[in-house]
């Protein structure tokens, strides 16, 4: 398939789907069919993209026919294709879940078009090869997330959405400033051209740290890195699961993707000065996230705090900056997208049944729904990183990379944090599944057919998690190839600028 078609389809497909959904505004059932078709084709296209990138190298298309430094280029390498494939799988699962569990009024007020536009934003961020275009796609993400979090206008939702939007506006402002500084210093916005300039003897190369600070802070807020993470647990628990699962599972990792891309491509020339900072930040992000989770008594809030802690692991690979560690980071991002989405979906199934997210009000699930408990257990153990589940391989690669590079303290922290993660998952297990159901709770348990069909998306994602755990070798190889590609940025520059 020609790169022109291949790279534009992940953007156009959700957009066309969203337009169709707007035309079918009052026919929710028809919208559902449209979205289902879009999700299936989306998975097919991203799979095709991965195959083509693996066989033919980096794929580039120049939008509008303008060659690279002047126009906007869309670029797909292995990292992009892997992330898009994972996103599309998680997207299909979330769609299946929300088709059953989401209330009618949210669907009627545009849940489906917003969801598709959000997916378009994710594809845009992953595909673009232009730094200003990247910012624009982040704005698309921000607007869709804002609308989705606020959709339904419950009090807690509006509060969460307000926090989300305020802090993300500040982050966008910082990003825009960074892009402005970058353009003032080097006169270029194309990432490949910037990468070439910072490796040349340009007069301003010494000032690279200046835009670097803006980018680190801006994307740090978007990815919820240590001192800037407070908005995440404050807003992610507010919307219903059909919305928060996708936002929590996918969107926060997109920030990490951009950091990986920018640091390997542009800021790699001064990585030595940034490395100590990144190491400290990643260690603190891990530790603070997991400690924050210990204090929570709400299913989703615990999971939200764990997102922060996992972000620390992803940042750890970037901070160590060896091929193995970056490959570990990439593997960890893929694993975490699937597992985190699945855990949110499980919490949604439990809440659908027992009408609560609070650990105090839940209990006795294991007695009544052993399958559900089993589904949670596997995902939770995978998150904590027990062998042979998928989290283990990611953490193994990161730890090995760290030990080889001599970062003993960070590796020690990461292993300790793993242990506390396990503790925290045990807490959920004890409170929700193991302990007897509190007597004073009179809520009836919902035993309908739809509650059983809700297992389906969870099983679907769990299958991928198990495959990722038991047949980790091909995915690890892919992430290693991808890390190699990231570290050898000459291939990227050549593909964008000279082919």
């Amino acid at each position: 398939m020609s790169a022109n078609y291949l790279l534009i389809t992940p953007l156009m497909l959700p957009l066309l789907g969203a337009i169709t959904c707007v035309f079918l505004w009052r026919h929710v059932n028809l919208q559902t069919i449209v979205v289902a078709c879009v999700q299936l084709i989306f998975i097919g296209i991203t799979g095709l993209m991965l195959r083509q990138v693996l066989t033919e190298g980096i794929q580039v298309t120049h939008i509008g026919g303008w060659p690279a430094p002047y126009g906007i280029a869309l670029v797909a390498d292995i990292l992009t294709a892997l992330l898009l494939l994972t996103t599309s799988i998680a997207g299909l699962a979330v769609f299946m879940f929300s088709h059953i569990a989401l209330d009618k009024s949210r669907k009627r007020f545009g849940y489906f078009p917003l969801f598709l536009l959000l997916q378009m934003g994710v594809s845009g961020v992953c595909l673009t090869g232009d730094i200003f275009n990247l910012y624009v796609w982040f704005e698309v993400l921000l607007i869709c997330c804002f609308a989705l979090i606020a959709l339904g206008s419950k009090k807690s939702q509006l509060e969460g959405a307000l926090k989300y939007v305020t802090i993300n506006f500040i982050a966008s402002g910082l990003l825009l400033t960074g892009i402005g500084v970058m353009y003032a210093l080097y006169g270029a916005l194309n990432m490949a051209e910037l990468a070439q300039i910072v490796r040349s003897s340009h007069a301003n190369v010494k000032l690279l740290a200046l835009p670097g600070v803006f980018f680190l802070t801006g994307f740090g807020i978007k990815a919820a890195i240590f001192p800037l993470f407070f908005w995440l647990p404050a807003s992610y628990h507010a919307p219903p699961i059909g919305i928060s699962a996708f936002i929590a599972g996918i969107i926060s990792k997109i920030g990490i993707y951009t950091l990986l891309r920018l640091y390997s491509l542009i800021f790699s020339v001064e990585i030595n000065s940034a490395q100590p900072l990144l190491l400290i930040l990643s260690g603190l992000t891990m530790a603070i996230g997991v400690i924050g989770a210990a204090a929570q008594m709400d299913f989703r809030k615990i999971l939200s705090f764990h997102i922060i802690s996992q972000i620390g692991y992803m940042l750890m690979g970037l901070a160590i900056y060896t091929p193995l560690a970056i490959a570990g980071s990439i593997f960890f991002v893929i694993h975490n997208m699937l597992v985190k989405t699945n855990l949110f979906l499980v919490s949604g199934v439990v809440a659908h049944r027992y009408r609560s997210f609070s650990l105090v009000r839940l209990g006795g699930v294991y007695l009544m729904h052993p399958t559900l408990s089993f589904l949670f257990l596997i995902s939770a153990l995978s998150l904590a990183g027990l062998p042979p589940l998928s989290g283990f391989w990611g953490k193994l690669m990161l730890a090995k990379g760290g030990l080889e590079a001599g970062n003993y303290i960070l590796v020690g922290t990461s292993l300790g944090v793993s242990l506390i993660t396990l503790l925290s998952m045990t807490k959920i297990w004890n409170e929700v599944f193991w302990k007897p159901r509190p007597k004073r709770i009179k809520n009836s348990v919902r035993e309908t057919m739809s509650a059983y069909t809700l297992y389906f998306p969870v099983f679907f994602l769990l299958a991928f998690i198990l495959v990722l755990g038991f047949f980790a070798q091909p995915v690890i190889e892919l992430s290693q190839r991808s890390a190699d590609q990231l570290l050898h940025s000459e291939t990227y520059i050549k593909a964008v600028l000279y082919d």
Partner: protein
Amino acid sequence: MRTLIFATAIRILTPVFLVFSIYILLRGHNHPGGGFIGGLIGSIAFVFHTLAHGTKQTNKSYFNLTFYKFDKKPDHGKFRHALRLLRKNIVRNKNEKPVFIWNYYLLRLRPTYLMATGLLVAVFSGSVGLFTGKPFMAAYWLNAKIPLIGSLGTPLLFDTGVYLLVLGMVLKMVFTMSKD
């Protein structure tokens, strides 16, 4: 704000705004202007109309296509009936109650559909380049030259899409806010 002067002035100004917005849309290729500003200027006409007469009236006069329909008289032929229908629909007597209003939901020009149409037009204009074997959004120009407009091509189509999108979005916002 329901003053007589304003309401009368807006009746004269509405076509001016609309024509000017289309002028801005068309000159946008080489000069300041384009779909975005054109759409904003075009929406001013409707916004002022809303301020003067209220949302309901604006909806009724601009975004509703109403067709009058009545039964065929037994001594009239089909052709004559069609002519009468046509005349009735073109020359409307406001005081006369219509016999039967054929007011289909599909024919209603809602701002949301305007937005979706705009997006669709813009996407289509980009895809034309794709079908000719070039990258997405590569410009494709027709050879024909039209006086006043110039040459036709996909960039103009894209701008038209943006025009519709902006128009629809501003109208949606104004209508929603003026309802409360």
